[in-house]
């Protein structure tokens, strides 16, 4: 994070100068990894290829991926949002509280989304309004939002969600495709178009590459960053609705530690943590990989925490491999 603000920006040679060719090779690397894991999974367990199983597997990543799309934009712009998991908890707590007061599904959805938006706005105001570093602000709001859930809930849990509410986390839209997965696909398209086809998306890259230059070229840096934090908040609210609906209950420890998983997903997807580069298709592939790894290990009865070793190694090696590869090639050229 520190690098983004102070060093004369070192050009991420992975992406720039060599253009889209290398960018594509990054995603094809991810694609190959995804295919290998898919193959490995289907060889490892005869139950893997069942369509219902595969559909179930999507729940391992859809909620995190929704946030990862918005997070990708935030990270490309050179900032970070570590408060997303706490926003999930706070939104879920607010919805649970509303249930106790007798609110029905439409109101719950509205409450979940608005809590997300409000939290995003608080982050955005602190970061763009006061010019504070986002990594520290969102560590603070992360404790704050999660703490508010703890104050409201204590060691209790909210349950008793209306039946119609469970559709968001458990409903199917078309044959085996769950509502969550459909939402994931739609959001992937929307974010892909916004980031790669609009002026807004170009502005996000410009800010990440050189904030000062972006401002001089007429980009409203503050406003765009504010919108990006609103988006991560909104997506966390949306994820909260899906997750709460799927679990059917709210605890203050809901989604604990998700912020790091979301960041991992984004970085694994090829988004430069220092800002300025990355793509939505990369994030989609990373989400699929992480989801399939979790599911595959689950089928093999490997505990979730062992999977985290694999995700950690994957994260480091996927970042390290292109660097080593480039270095080896340079050595050969000499």
């Amino acid at each position, binding site marked *: 994070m*520190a690098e983004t603000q102070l060093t004369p920006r070192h050009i991420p040679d992975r992406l720039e100068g060599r253009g889209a060719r290398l960018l594509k090779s990054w995603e094809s690397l991810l694609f190959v990894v995804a295919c290998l894991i898919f193959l490995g999974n289907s060889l490892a367990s005869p139950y893997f290829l069942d369509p219902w199983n595969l559909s179930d597997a999507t729940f391992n990543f859809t909620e995190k991926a929704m946030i990862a799309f918005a997070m990708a934009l935030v990270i490309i712009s050179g900032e970070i949002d570590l408060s997303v998991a706490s926003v999930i908890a706070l939104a879920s707590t607010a919805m649970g509280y509303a249930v106790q007061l007798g609110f029905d599904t439409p109101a719950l959805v509205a409450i979940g989304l608005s809590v997300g938006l409000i939290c995003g706005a608080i982050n955005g105001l602190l970061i763009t309004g006061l*010019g504070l570093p986002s990594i520290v602000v969102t*560590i603070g709001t992360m404790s704050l939002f999660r*703490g508010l859930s703890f104050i409201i809930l204590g060691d209790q849990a909210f349950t008793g969600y209306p039946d119609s509410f469970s559709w968001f986390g458990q409903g199917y839209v078309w044959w085996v495709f769950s509502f969550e997965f459909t939402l994931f696909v739609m959001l992937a398209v929307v974010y892909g178009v916004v980031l790669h086809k609009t002026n807004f998306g170009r502005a996000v890259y410009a800010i990440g590459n050189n904030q000062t230059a972006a401002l001089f070229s007429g980009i409203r840096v503050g406003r765009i960053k504010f919108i990006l934090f609103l988006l991560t908040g909104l997506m966390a609210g949306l994820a909260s609705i899906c997750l709460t609906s799927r679990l059917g209950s709210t605890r203050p420890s809901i989604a604990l530690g998700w912020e790091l998983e979301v960041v991992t997903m984004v*970085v694994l997807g090829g988004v430069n943590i220092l800002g300025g580069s990355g793509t939505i298709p990369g994030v989609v592939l990373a989400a699929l990989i992480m989801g399939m790894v979790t599911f595959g290990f689950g089928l093999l009865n490997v505990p979730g925490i*062992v999977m985290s070793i694999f995700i*950690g190694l994957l994260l480091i090696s996927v970042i390290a491999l292109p660097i080593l590869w480039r270095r080896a090639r340079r050595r050969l050229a000499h």
Partner: protein
Amino acid sequence: MMAKFLKNRELLLVGAIGVLLALITWRFPPFVAPANLARVYNDTSILIILALGQMAVILTRCIDLSMAANLALSGMVAAMLNAASPGLPIPLVILAAVALGTVLGMINGALVWKLDIPPIVVTLGTLTIYRGLIFLLSDGKWINAHQMSDAFKALPRDALLGFPVLSWLSLVMIALVFLLMSRTALGRAFYAVGGNPHAAVYTGIDVGRTRFSAYCLSGALAGLSGYLWVSRYAVAYVDIAAGFELDIIAACVIGGISIAGGIGTVAGAVLGALFLGVIKNALPVINISPFAQMAISGTVIIIAVAVNARAERRKGRVILRKAEAV
């Protein structure tokens, strides 16, 4: 005079802690009894030790998110060593924990140094790997008090001149890190690398090696804290100190250590940790639910950053002031 006071972050923090203590005393006078303050300090000792390591890393413009996982892994190994051979002298166990912590820190440092992977990515990765390794090692089982030898559990609690060894150890660490920062070339290099890496290169400082050393230091301190944690609480399991990495960073941030590198003092790190420690210990006694603790420390972090931000802003030739502000 006032402006000068406001600019000195350490004095500001001392003032803030003073105000905090005054407020607590108003509601619950026994809190400031010397014995209780000593207990609060003892409670905060581990956080202080960890904050010292994190400070060195942050000074060089890096970050170590894996410290709590490192603590948990080193602590688990120390506990397992003790459970497997209770006769092993405790200094050897501590040495093993510190050595393991250092090795884990070296892994972080080497990845940052040799492969140029951004520190946040490296330590995010090793954070999950180290936690996973604890599970593999322990098979997910807890090591409980009755499996640990008495000497293992007693050391941090043993009194020395009226204070527990844990408190003394943290004081020794503060002194050592202070000497390292103020009296050695390496300490100066930490500041130089964080202040301006390019200038540091021209003065003959190896930026990568300096960062590597910072990670070794944070790893060693995490390893030491690992032993202290499991022996003090007399339990070791996969999730100990989960999420603690953010407390450590928070202590540094409150202590005025700039997340952008190059700015910060040992006193700041210690005071930042103490500030969190006082809050944590005071909440129950003044009848604020412990559930409010996270919300309060979050608010404190935000306020601390907002106060520090003004002093932190870089000077330089700024044509359009707004550009640097956003």
